[in-house]
């Protein structure tokens, strides 16, 4: 069936901000979809509120609305744009929910908009867990026994029947939000209570537990002629009970015979037909009993999902792209496989490699959060790697996490002699569980013991056991060529071998090169080499034959940003992708290295060549070597490596690469050091005559105390060389300082702690700029809405700045130029300032792309990252102005007064985390970054822009109802006018006593509620939990006495207020 001719204009809904469970992969899928639709000659309108996406780039859609993804805003866009069709299956649950709401309220029908790629009743059958179970039964499949409950009483009754442990799940939420496993009644109250609150339809599903079964996931595609293919089958190394998003996963399946695999495939096809998935992608999860093969269907996602991106990258089959084509009427056999260019898409990829995904967590950001892994997804990112065996891929994926410890044997590795504690620890799923398994095996635990303790399939355990045996050989023996080759074939890094042999990593590398043990690069080709591949999508392995072709163009390697984490997310991927586009357009051959499957940078057609590899010195060096050979053979030249766009990850490699003779383009590593190292940077500032908060560096507690005494409290303390404010705290007195030092084991001669004077009530300002050695292009000046002290990544900001005058902006421009020149920047520079008492303090300078580059680019319509890439390769700002990549005149310092205001707001993941006791984690912001994503609101006036950013981040702000106010004394004055305004608007006001006094004195009527800590029972927490409160204004009370605030805030998160 060819393309439909009745659709000319499609509205695509993006996924909004990056959240846990709904992350960058939807930028990837949405971007692919928009591109495809435009290639097909359709007009594409896009709505998405996240600036840090490729999807929202002007060239991706014909019209882009950076608006909140709520039914209301989508309706407005529909009214204005009048599209023929709406495509909402590529923007995750957020997009789908908005589309369903519009369908059900009749808006779509009223405007003659057809929902394509989705059939609403089918979506309900797939997503409503109860209806889905009926579908499963209808095709003869089996589901876990379960019961839907609407009240706590029903929950208790159902549990009596199902027995403990029992799985509690809300319907219609993704990423397992609010779900958990209850082992007793207390657990039940905690989880089911939360679940009832998290589900919009206010019901929870209780399910019999099948903990420990094998878990599988099949990614499927269906077209409107009812052709169905399985794109990828994924096996979870962690058995049932750990969310697939948090599990180590592997493709293809490793421990199923053909019979069992085909059984899952048959079930999937029957289910997809019975559910009636219109066209496009969907995934179905299964549990398989390891004792007898009994299969239970867990759930289905009737849309492109988180794992679709993974499956696409793992197989080379672009699910989102194909889903978009299917939505406009094509069938699978009419679509070409991009990689082979000769075969159709109506096939199932065959893998001749093993691909492993490992999750990346951020528990260190949420002290108190329960770090055990359950049915609620908690990871913030993931790394993926290819190898020819499971261990090889696993080890490569693990080192791609860039955490410490993340590789076996590296870092602190003194397991003692008794395997028992490691077995015990591995029995409870947690981040780094496989590290425990390895230790247990090393200390003599048997494969059966490990299997017993963890439920991990014996085959995987044996793979690790083989590695442990190899380790013993390496430790005991001579690292000759055969042994070294075996180690490399098992995925061991030079760093791991160095640890085992007690030598430096460079020595292992030298030995390896001398023995000629170097990786080759194989192609990800969808077909296990059955057909020639046209796309250079490579991974390294230790084999005979390399497939890297000679090339004749001058080339540039771009280092990506690795797995998403808090503080380094999709924004950096955005910059890398832009660099690739800009350099390709300028005639260079671009080569991307990255290990993050969720991103656009790892799409095989973003760059001329893609290496899906860990971002370590070793792995990058080998790619450089392979590409140098390719250039020698083909007549091109490797011009260098770009390190300043992927965040801290590539920046950390810069010096080492340069020392090894790899050319770095743009800001040289020495200059990077000047900006990153406090002492050196202090000197740059001093030379330029720019003020910084008083500070010092301490390697002992004594020193820290002396410095603090001298510069005066409050001070800000943190370890040096961090991103995202890791381990950063505001300290008000010596006692707190002592406490900080005791908790951070990091202090020492190699790990100095920085002590800065903390500037209270200062206005924080962020600047992104471009410098070519002579000229500065000021990208934009952002004024933070929260005062300095809240990490720049977590605070909202406005561009252009709303309270800064012309002279202040000029002062900022001048300071930025001085810093750029002093440091020696070639490319991007980000500077953070704090303005207090008319002094412009420099907080820090980052000689790299920053988190805000996409926001600035979107707000000012200037492609900063593209321009930066060109500057790094020698273009001047003047030339780029002539070329048109930068505006002919002026820059971000000259925004006209009537320019629209853009507001960026951060999105925080507190709702995901619980303490071990089951309480929420505290939500107060500080200098340590915690947000996972951001949204943008644009409007003519600040107020409406801000409101839009709030709706996009947290849902619509209430316009009536009850507001609860409780603020610290210092904030009482500031609160009066806003609260009176709320009262005028008809809000009922509740307040704690002190706050109420002030309000009453100012003529605001309000009801007094008790404090939770007074325990009188008339406090606000139960009312919040009961859903009687619509808006909360709360500021924490500085030092100590934060408990009330904590209860209130966690209750608010729970109820989504």
């Amino acid at each position, binding site marked *: 069936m060819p393309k439909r001719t009745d659709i000319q204009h499609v509205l695509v809904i993006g996924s909004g901000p990056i959240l846990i469970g709904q992350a960058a992969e939807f930028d990837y899928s949405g971007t692919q979809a928009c591109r495809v639709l435009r290639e097909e000659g359709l007009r594409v309108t896009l709505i998405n509120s996240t600036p840090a996406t490729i999807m929202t780039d002007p060239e991706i859609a014909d019209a882009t609305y950076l608006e909140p993804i709520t039914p209301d805003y989508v309706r407005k866009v529909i009214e204005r744009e009048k599209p023929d069709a709406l495509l909402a299956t590529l923007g995750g649950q957020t997009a789908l929910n908005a589309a369903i709401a519009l369908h059900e309220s009749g808006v779509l029908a009223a405007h003659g908009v057809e929902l394509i790629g989705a059939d609403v009743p089918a979506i309900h059958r797939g997503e409503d867990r109860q209806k889905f179970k009926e579908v499963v039964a209808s095709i003869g499949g089996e589901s876990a026994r379960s019961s839907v409950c609407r009240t706590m009483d029903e929950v208790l009754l159902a549990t009596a029947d199902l027995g403990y442990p029992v799985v509690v799940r809300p319907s219609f939420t993704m990423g397992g939000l609010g779900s958990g496993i209850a082992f007793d009644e207390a657990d039940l109250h905690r989880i089911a209570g939360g679940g009832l609150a998290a589900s919009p339809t206010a019901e929870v599903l209780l399910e019999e537990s099948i903990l420990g079964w094998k878990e599988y996931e099949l990614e499927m595609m269906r077209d409107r*002629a*009812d*052709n169905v*293919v*399985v794109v990828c089958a994924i096996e979870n190394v962690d058995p049932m009970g750990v969310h697939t998003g948090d599990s180590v996963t592997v493709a*293809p*399946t*490793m*421990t*199923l*015979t*053909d*019979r*069992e*695999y*085909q059984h899952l*495939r*048959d079930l999937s096809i029957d289910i997809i037909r019975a559910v009636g998935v219109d066209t496009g992608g969907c995934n179905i999860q299964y549990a398989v009993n*390891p*004792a*007898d*093969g009994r299969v239970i269907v867990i759930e289905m996602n009737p849309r492109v999902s988180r794992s679709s991106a993974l499956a696409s990258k793992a197989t080379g089959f672009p699910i989102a792209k194909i889903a978009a084509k299917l939505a406009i009427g094509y*069938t*699978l*056999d009419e679509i070409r496989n991009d990689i082979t260019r*000769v*075969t*159709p898409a*109506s*096939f*199932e*990829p*065959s*893998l*001749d*490699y*093993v691909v492993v995904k490992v999750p990346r967590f951020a528990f260190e950001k949420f002290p108190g959060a329960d770090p055990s892994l359950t049915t609620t997804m908690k990871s913030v990112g993931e790394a993926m790697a290819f190898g*020819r*065996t*499971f261990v090889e891929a696993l080890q490569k994926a693990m080192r791609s996490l860039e955490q410490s410890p993340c590789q076996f044997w590296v870092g602190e590795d003194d397991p003692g002699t008794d395997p028992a504690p490691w077995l015990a620890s591995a029995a409870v799923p947690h981040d780094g569980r496989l590290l425990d398994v390895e230790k247990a095996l090393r200390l003599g635990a048997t*494969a059966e013991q490990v299997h017993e303790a963890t439920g991990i*399939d*014996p*085959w995987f355990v*044996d793979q690790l056991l*083989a590695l442990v045996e190899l380790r013993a050989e390496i430790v005991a023996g001579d690292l000759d060529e055969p042994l070294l080759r075996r180690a490399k074939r098992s995925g061991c890094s030079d760093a791991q071998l160095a640890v085992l042999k007690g030598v430096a990593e460079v020595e292992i590398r030298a030995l390896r090169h001398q023995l000629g043990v170097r990786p080759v690069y*194989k192609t990800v080709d969808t*077909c*296990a*080499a*059955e*057909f*020639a591949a046209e796309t250079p999508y490579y991974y390294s392995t230790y*084999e*005979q*034959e390399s497939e890297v072709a000679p090339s004749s163009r001058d080339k540039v390697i771009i280092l990506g940003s690795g797995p998403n984490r808090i503080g380094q997310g999709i924004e950096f991927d955005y910059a890398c992708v832009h660099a690739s586009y800009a350099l390709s357009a300028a005639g260079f051959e671009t080569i991307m290295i990255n290990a993050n499957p969720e991103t656009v940078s790892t799409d095989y057609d973003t760059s001329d060549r893609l290496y899906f590899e860990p971002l370590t010195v070793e792995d990058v060096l080998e790619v450089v070597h392979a590409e140098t050979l390719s250039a020698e053979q083909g007549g091109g030249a490797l011009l260098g490596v770009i390190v300043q766009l992927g965040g801290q990850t590539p920046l950390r490699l810069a010096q080492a690469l340069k020392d090894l003779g790899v050319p770095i383009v743009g800001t040289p590593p020495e200059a990077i050091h000047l900006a990153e190292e406090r002492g050196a940077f202090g000197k740059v500032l001093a030379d330029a005559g720019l003020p910084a908060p008083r500070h010092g560096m301490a390697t002992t507690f004594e020193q820290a105390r002396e410095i603090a005494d001298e510069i005066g409290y409050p001070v800000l303390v943190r370890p040096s060389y961090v991103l995202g404010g890791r381990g950063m705290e505001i300290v008000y007195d010596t006692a707190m300082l002592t406490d900080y030092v005791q908790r951070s084991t990091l202090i020492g001669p190699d790990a100095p702690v920085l002590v800065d004077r903390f500037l209270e009530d200062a206005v924080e300002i962020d600047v992104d700029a471009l410098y070519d050695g002579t000229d500065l292009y000021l990208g934009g000046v952002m004024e933070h809405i929260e005062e300095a002290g809240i990490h720049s990544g977590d605070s909202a900001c406005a561009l252009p700045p709303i309270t800064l005058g012309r002279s202040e902006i000029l002062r900022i421009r001048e300071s930025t130029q001085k810093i750029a020149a002093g440091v020696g920047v070639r490319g991007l520079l980000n500077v953070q300032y704090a303005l207090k008492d008319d002094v412009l303090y420099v907080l820090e300078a980052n000689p790299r792309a920053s988190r805000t580059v996409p926001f600035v680019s979107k707000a000012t319509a200037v492609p900063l990252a593209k321009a930066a890439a060109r500057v790094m390769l020698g273009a001047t700002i003047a030339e780029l102005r002539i070329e048109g990549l930068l505006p002919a005149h002026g820059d971000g310092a000259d925004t006209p007064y009537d320019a629209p205001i853009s507001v960026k707001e951060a999105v925080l993941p507190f709702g995901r985390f619980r303490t071990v006791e089951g309480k929420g984690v505290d939500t107060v912001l500080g200098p340590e970054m915690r947000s996972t994503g951001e949204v943008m609101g644009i409007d003519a006036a600040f107020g409406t822009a801000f409101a839009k950013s709030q709706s996009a981040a947290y849902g619509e702000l209430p316009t009536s109802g009850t507001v609860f106010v409780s603020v610290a004394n210092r904030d009482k004055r500031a609160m009066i006018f806003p609260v009176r305004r709320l009262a005028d608007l008809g809000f009922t006001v509740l307040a704690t006593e002190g706050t109420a006094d002030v309000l009453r004195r100012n003529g605001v009527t309000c009801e007094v509620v008790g404090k939770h800590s007074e325990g009188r029972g008339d406090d606000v927490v139960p009312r919040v939990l009961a859903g009687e409160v619509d808006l909360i204004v709360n500021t924490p009370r500085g030092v100590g006495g934060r408990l009330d605030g904590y209860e209130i805030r966690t209750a608010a998160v729970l109820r989504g207020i």
Partner: protein
Amino acid sequence: MSALLVLEDGRTFTGEAFGAVGETFGEAVFCTAMTGYQETLTDPSFHRQVVVMTAPQIGNTGVNDTDPESSKIWVSGFVVRDASRVSSSWRAQRDLGDELATQGVVGISGIDTRALTRHLRERGSMRVGVSSTETDPAALLERVLQSPQMAGADLAHEVSTRQAYVVPAVGAKRFTVAAIDLGIKASTPRHLADLGCEVHVLPAWTTWEQVEALAPDGVFLSNGPGDPATTDGPVALTRKVLETGLPLFGICFGNQILGRALGLDTYKLRYGHRGANQPVQDRATGRVHVTSQNHGFAVQAPTDGTAVDTPYGPVVVSHVGLNDDCVEGLRCLERPAFSVQHHPEAAPGPHDAGGLFEDFVRLMEAQRA
């Protein structure tokens, strides 16, 4: 113990011995199925072939007594990247390596199977020797060059059952089917039996008179090894079936036999189709099935839908392989006879095409009515 693999054009790979120690020769072919090595090993169509698995880790689920497609392993050699040390499955009874050794099948592991596959793709399937007793590649190469070619090899009689046997119908018997065993896989009669057929599995050299004596409702031509151009007995038998108007269904080799009986030519593909992910379109419905395939030869016929005139009336290409526009099925328009090149019985592979067995049953029903 190390092992050597030498192709007839001299390309050599060194790896580890896997399975039996010894030396073996055959035609090197690669198989891209990611599951089902046990079914593959026991498929008689692989007789005299050295199978290279493109999936790198093989043996993970061991072997059992329920999955084999015949009574023994037929491949003449087995090539894998990484052989599993353990078997993990509730159905596993033995380790794969032990099974190969017990059945005397020589294998090799630890080689760059992707490089080998690419080589075969570019230069075509060719003869190969695998040895864990020879250390000199040149000596092994000499023996490879002396080993027989696949083109022109008549192999069906080597794999066929010597004695006729009956697979009883499951439930009430509705039809009698004479199945000519040219290298039949166990799941084919099973599929027919499930549909109420009593299946008489007959040797490859069975004559028309012997078939007629059974008074079957239909005749089935199985898959099998070798060059269809040399398999004359079954072709003659097929012509008889066509003349009498008995329903006929052929799979794989059986498709080629029907083709030849109709007067069509067969040819050798450069490197064949062996895997579980091959898209095949049914030209009548437009539907695409993901199929299991294992063939090195194919029928020559127009795939654009035009009918070819034959002594048995017009015939059309009913199924087409979408990867390379290869003939994947034939249908006689005036006789109750059809065949497919792919494997509706799967094992290993997807079950998409399983409905073809029902088509055959419907033909028999129609004939009876």
